[in-house]
């Protein structure tokens, strides 16, 4: 080499690039460099191996070697009949499998569950694979269209109107509530000290209510006319389609540029019409399967997927609310988060079941499953809010300022710049919550619903199958199912984490 030590050195020919030397690996090399490369590691390796030995071997013995694989009732799984100490009693799982998956869902209708699950998978999987195209359409199908279709598929039943009737109904409900509030004030004004004021306010409110009633009268009248015709759904549908498409057309820019909006609006409605026709929603739809017949994995999935999908927006809204500068919104968010985070989910569900009916109008009942869903969504939402808040805190102020300097409004800054970055920071925490939620679904047993674990426990009490190993077999089976789902979530989140953080590496 050149003499570097001379105070002056000039390289004449540049050193060419060459490939990195190949590290010698191989199985033994791997073992040596990774498992046995220091005394501590040797010790660790041995300890882990022992641990594995003592957990894996008995598990395999129980699950496979000593298991009983076929039989018709408990007799098959008794040591005295099998002739050896029985491990897992798989015929019991075979017999109970339909219940563990569908609960009490009527046998003849189970194809609907299968179809819903297949639909869900068909929409979800492409959404999860980043390379596939049309994410926007895919996502809107999964998040908006699928829940509706799944509802009519799983629950059954049809519709008696469409957009127009629903709007009319909602407005009417709202208006009734205003008028009755006014009447209450009026009745209070008979006894109160500030009677005149109450009287005036009460009358004002009633007047407003009546005014609204007149305003919406055309709508309600139209609805009543529609209900009279035999084809109320379709007429209503046509009116709604025309109306919404027109609005889309005008908002989209009218004659000039509105054609795209018009086309996509009409396409959407055609799709909806096809679904309605296909499922016969206009005349009753599929036979109704009340939610108290749902159970098993079906309930676990319905509850957890709904919880996962709804809790994140709730959490984001609360987290933003907690950082808002408007005092009332901030206070409300803090109170809301701390309350839901503070109480056990099981007591929430208890109240949802036995107290909620008290707070709703007398004839208005909310289905048990829906109550559980709302409770779980709010509960998990509060947890997610704190997770998201952590991520928000990690976004430097410069990002907000840069966005503001570009003229982006607060909403756009938040949704385009802040949230996408904040959420990436906290993926592990979000997934923590999702995994907790997935397993907490068993608490719905308090609203008389049996999820996977609940169905399992119920099946323990069938005397036909009570054997010493029934409970352990059941737990092992459920454990495997829970593990598969949670492990999937956990791994997928790691994948997403790595992918999304490409930009952070340099």
């Amino acid at each position, binding site marked *: 080499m050149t003499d570097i030590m001379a105070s002056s050195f000039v390289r004449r020919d540049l050193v060419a690039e060459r490939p990195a030397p190949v590290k010698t690996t191989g199985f033994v090399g791997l073992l040596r460099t990774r498992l046995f490369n220091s005394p501590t590691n040797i010790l660790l390796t041995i300890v882990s191996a022992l641990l594995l030995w003592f957990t894996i071997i008995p598990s395999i013995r129980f699950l496979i070697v000593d298991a009983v694989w076929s039989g018709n009732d408990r007799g098959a799984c008794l040591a005295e009949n099998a002739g050896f100490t029985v491990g897992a009693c798989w015929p019991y799982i075979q017999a109970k499998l339909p219940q563990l998956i569908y609960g009490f869902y009527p046998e003849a209708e189970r194809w609907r569950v299968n179809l819903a699950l297949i639909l869900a998978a068909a929409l979800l999987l492409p959404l999860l694979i980043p390379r596939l195209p049309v994410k926007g359409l895919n996502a809107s199908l999964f998040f908006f269209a699928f829940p509706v279709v799944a509802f009519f598929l799983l629950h059954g039943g049809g519709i008696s109107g469409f957009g127009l009737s629903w709007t009319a109904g909602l407005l009417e409900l709202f208006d009734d509530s205003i008028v009755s509030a006014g009447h209450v004030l009026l009745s209070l004004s008979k006894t109160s000290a500030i009677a005149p004021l109450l009287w005036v306010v009460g009358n004002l409110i009633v007047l407003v209510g009546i005014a609204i009633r007149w305003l919406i009268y055309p709508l309600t009248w139209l609805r009543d006319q529609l209900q009279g015709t035999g084809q109320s759904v379709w007429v209503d549908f046509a009116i709604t389609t025309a109306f919404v498409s027109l609005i889309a057309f005008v908002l989209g820019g009218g004659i000039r540029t509105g054609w795209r909006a018009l086309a996509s609006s009409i396409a959407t409605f055609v799709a909806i019409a096809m679904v309605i026709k296909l499922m016969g929603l206009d005349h009753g739809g599929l036979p109704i399967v009340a939610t108290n017949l749902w159970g098993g994995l079906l309930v676990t999935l319905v509850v957890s997927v709904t919880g996962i999908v709804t809790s994140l927006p709730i959490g984001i809204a609360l987290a933003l609310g907690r950082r808002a500068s408007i005092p009332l919104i901030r206070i409300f968010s803090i109170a809301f988060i701390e309350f839901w*985070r*503070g109480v056990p989910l099981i007591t929430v569900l208890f109240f949802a079941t036995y107290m909620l009916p008290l707070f709703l109008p007398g004839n208005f009942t909310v289905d048990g499953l829906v109550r559980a869903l709302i409770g779980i969504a709010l509960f998990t939402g509060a947890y997610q809010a704190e997770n998201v808040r952590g991520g928000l805190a990690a976004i430097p102020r410069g990002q907000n300022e840069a966005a503001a300097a570009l003229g982006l409004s607060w909403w756009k800054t938040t949704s385009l710049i802040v949230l996408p970055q904040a959420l990436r920071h906290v993926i592990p925490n979000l997934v923590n919550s999702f995994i907790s939620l997935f397993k907490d679904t068993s608490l719905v047993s308090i609203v008389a619903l049996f999820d996977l674990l609940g169905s399992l426990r119920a099946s323990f009490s069938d005397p036909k199958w009570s054997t010493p190993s029934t409970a352990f077999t059941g737990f092992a089976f459920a454990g495997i199912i829970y593990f598969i789902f*949670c492990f999937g979530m956990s791994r997928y989140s790691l994948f997403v984490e790595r992918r999304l953080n490409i930009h952070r590496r340099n």
Partner: protein
Amino acid sequence: MSTEARKPPLQIALKIRRLLGGKAGWNGVAVQFAFAAVLGWIAYEIISNARANLENQHIAAGFGFLANNAGFDVNQTLISYTGSDTFLRVFVVGLLNTLVVSAVGIVFATVIGFIVALCRLSPNWLVSRIGEIYVELIRNQPLLFQILFWYLAVLAALPNPRQSISLLGIAFISNRGLVIPQPIGQAGLEPFLAALAFGVVAALGLRIHARRALFLRGQMIHIWPYVLGLVIGLPLVTMLVFGLPITVQLPQLKGFNFAGGARVIPEFVALALALSTYTAAFIAEIVRAGIQSVHKGQMEAGSSLGLSRGTTLRLIVVPQAMRVIVPPLTNQYLNLTKNSSLAVAIGYPDLVSVWAGTSLSQTGQAIEIITMTMGVYLLISLVTSGVMSVYGWRLNRSLGA
């Protein structure tokens, strides 16, 4: 041409606007009015419906049952309790049991969680794999199964009382639990505790004083002789004056079981074990996210000073990561406390088991009992998250803007 600094104008109107409406000013006030109106409307609907419905059903409420005789026994009681005590006392017993197992669980979960997270981030392939497997295995199994697993594993590992393992003849381990000599307070106990408390407080005060002297005057004061005197000497002296603070009662095997002595029941051990290992898996993920959020340069700066990896993590990285860790960590603490209600599966008498379980079905006063349960959990949570946010606030302050 030089302008003197002067006081800012008062701008009272602006300040009021800010106070009422936040950054958005009057728009914010309007939003709030709309929001308040919606809230008010919802509240009105709820109240009016509840009134109407309550009139229809004849649901009677009242807390009179609290003074009734409970009539059942509880396995672990931190305060004295027998079947002839009141339901109110049952409530306290259950609450204390919940608090104890949660506190122990939180401490161990935090420690294990941090260790596992550090393992996961270790450059050592094997260690990081072990950390990863731990998280994946434990986090993805329902807690209930783990509680049962630990319980049956603990029971399976222990002999029955007659064959119990004796530790020096004063403590015994069997499947009835760990029996240890029970300390019984004597006359000297109170002065002893008082002296000890005083010693600790005074030592802390000394330390603060010494720190201040160092910063203000650059003067170094050796405080450890005083500290020793205060923390050990003073209590010893009170012991000489007032006599022994405690005596111990030794356990003895009588019939099926041990009599006398204090006992750690296996349910407690299994529950604390399951809760802490389970929550640790979640905490490990949180800590990992937190540590990864600390700039890489900090680790490098530490090592370039010659600090070992462990020291750098402990003194430099983790303290900075705490800011990101604390909010979700609070979540986990609350979760652990609430998850302790799964105790009922293995017969640990926690609040949900003895109060929202047995007491509820004995009295049938569901609404009252669930409300109380909810309230007390809410209180525990608020205290926990209060403590944690004070900690987080101090962290933020020292990381200072």
